[in-house]
């Protein structure tokens, strides 16, 4: 029997599940309702605040960890849901697509956050 790396995916799923559960609702409310404004002076204030808070290394790191692990959580859930819906016979393709997507999201998050 070949060595399985399922334990790794399940632990990323679980860590990302916790972080997404804790942070994503507040993030959605932030981008959708706190940051959204058609008043340019309010938007300028929000911009200054976001620039300042995202300038902190610890905030960048926290955002990176939350976004990356949440992506892996989603990837794992989507992979298993597709299997439950009958997508079988292409396990490697499914893994590469799902976890590859999460990896791409992780790289994008790092590139975006490190610029602050």
């Amino acid at each position, binding site marked *: 029997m070949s060595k399985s790396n399922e334990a790794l995916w399940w632990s990323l799923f679980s860590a990302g*599940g*916790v972080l*997404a*559960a*804790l*942070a*994503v*609702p*507040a*993030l*959605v*409310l*932030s*981008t*959708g*309702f*706190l*940051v*959204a*404004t*058609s008043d*340019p002076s*309010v*938007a*300028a204030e*929000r*911009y200054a*605040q*976001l*620039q300042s*808070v*995202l300038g902190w290394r610890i*905030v960048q790191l926290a*955002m990176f960890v939350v*976004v990356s692990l*949440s*992506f892996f*959580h*989603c*990837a794992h*859930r*989507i992979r*298993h*849901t597709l299997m*439950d*819906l*009958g997508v079988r016979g292409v396990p490697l393709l499914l893994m590469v697509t799902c976890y590859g*997507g999460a990896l791409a*999201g992780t790289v*994008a*998050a790092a590139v*975006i*956050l490190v*610029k*602050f």
Partner: protein
Amino acid sequence: MSKRYHPTQPWNWFLKRPAYVKFMVRELTAVAIGLYLIYLLRVLATVGNGEAAFVELAGAMTGTRARLLHVLALAAALFHSVTWFNLTPKAMPMYRGEQRLADPLVAFGMGYLPWIVVTILIFWGVCA
């Protein structure tokens, strides 16, 4: 012909029972959250691209489509949070001595309480 056993079940098996439908809705929150995270990265990238770009995006976010998508993302995110925290005591039972702590207590201490703290921290970071 292959003699291997091929179990078959229709793709819509989860429509058989309400509990299965709830399971599938819970699993599909991952799609909404994943798409939202991509959008969040776009917002962060825009903040990095200067004030003019950000002001324009903030204005676009007040549009009907953006509002509707945020409401859908919020519904999915809340469903994920609540189902996740409620499962925490089952996945990770906690004991004091020999006695198992009540599920609602563990869900509150390990889930809902930290959730409130993180939410306040994020709002404070965005608005303070």
